[in-house]
């Protein structure tokens, strides 16, 4: 088994970036994680070891125009990555409507060395194919960086799910066929629409960060065996689905255990748990 990557985690409560109690309270309210406790890095590493996960992608969120500030900044992500560059993969975030959005993103890639862009259409309230976003996508293309989009419904307050509907991403896939982008949370509840996009556009990915009802085992059974056809991922979408937990909202350990015992072929599991993420990140070529 190659390295295992969780492509979707939120480090808002990692202790090294939680010294400011007012900022911590803002994060809890803004993210809708009302009782989240702070986590020392040793605890994060213990969680990774228990789940047999080698690397985490850390996602920030810039809400400068919507909430007046960043929830987690690019500089904080860079600080965390510097603490353990072997384990952490840092993404950038930019509020697409701030006047200096392009400069912020260029600095995040070229100055801070961040590995991709996280955007949240539902919370930042934009349509993925809005031409005002195109300069950001062009920067990602030039830098060979992927985009991680929140997709589907969002449990964050003040978010609008229709901005995350998979249908809104097709025009983007059409206009930017070389831009690798991911519909996080498999676009739930519109998972069939997400599967359709993946089928048509090889540059579109999805992650497994969905646990909106039931236990991880039950929910993956419902979504990946009954809502979608039992074999769709294993046969047709195996190069475009990545393990992502959405930790700390969902349950990293039980989710990855549910996937490991799901019944996909060993080769599919290896792709989902790590190799697809390396291709998505531009660190490996597609098979």
């Amino acid at each position: 088994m190659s390295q295992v990557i969780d492509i979707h985690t939120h480090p808002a409560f990692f202790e090294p970036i939680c010294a400011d109690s007012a900022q911590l309270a803002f994060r809890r309210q803004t993210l809708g994680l009302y009782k989240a406790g702070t986590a020392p890095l040793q605890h994060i590493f213990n969680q990774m070891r228990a789940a047999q996960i080698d690397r985490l992608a850390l996602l920030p969120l810039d809400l400068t125009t919507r909430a007046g500030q960043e929830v987690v900044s690019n500089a904080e992500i860079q600080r965390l990555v510097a603490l353990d560059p072997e384990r952490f993969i840092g993404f950038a975030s930019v509020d697409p409507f701030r006047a200096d959005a392009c400069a912020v993103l260029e600095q995040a890639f070229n100055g801070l060395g961040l590995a991709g862009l996280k955007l949240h259409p539902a919370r930042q309230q934009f349509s993925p194919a809005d031409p005002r976003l195109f300069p950001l996508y062009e920067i990602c293309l030039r830098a060979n960086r992927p985009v991680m989009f929140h997709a589907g419904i969002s449990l964050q307050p003040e978010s609008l799910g229709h901005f995350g509907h998979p249908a809104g991403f097709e025009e983007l896939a059409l206009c930017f066929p070389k831009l690798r982008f991911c519909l996080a949370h498999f676009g739930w509840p519109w998972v069939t629409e997400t599967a359709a996009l993946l089928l048509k556009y090889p540059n579109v990915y999805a992650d497994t960060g969905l646990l909106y009802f039931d236990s991880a085992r039950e929910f993956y059974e419902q979504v990946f065996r009954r809502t979608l056809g039992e074999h769709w991922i294993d046969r047709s979408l195996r190069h475009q689905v990545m393990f992502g937990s959405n930790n700390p909202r969902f349950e990293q350990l039980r989710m990855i255990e549910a996937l490991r015992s799901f019944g996909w072929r060993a080769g599919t599991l290896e792709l989902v748990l790590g190799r697809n993420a390396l291709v998505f990140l531009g660190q490996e070529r597609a098979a």
Partner: protein
Amino acid sequence: MVKTEKVTLLTEQYHQMIVITPHLRAAVAAAGVQNGLAAVITLHTTTGISVNEALECLESDIDDALKRLVPEDHPYAHARILPSYGSTAGNPTGHIKSMLTGNHCLFPVSDGQLVMGEAQEVYFYEFDGPARRTVTITVMGEA
């Protein structure tokens, strides 16, 4: 006299049994209580405290018995999003195991010494780890 101290544990596994008797002995020695009681209490609802013999075989049997009694694969009502947390509650088995093991234990303190049976050790049980956990040790009685 009542003295309370907190012990923080960073657990490393989903299920883990940790002997914490040395923490208890140290707290009793530091408290200055000559005759009274020492209480070990966990502050969590998916952990447990109990007293048993610290043998590898018994740890395995206890772990196995708890997993048999409370299987992971069962349609628990607690497997859902909790709106007050904004996150999933996927740990019903931890809560039920916590109920089975209890959240505390008590020992007498006599002449400044902890009174324990020869085979007895205090265990902290992690049922939803890895996590950061806190246990209180309260020593109360005559100085």
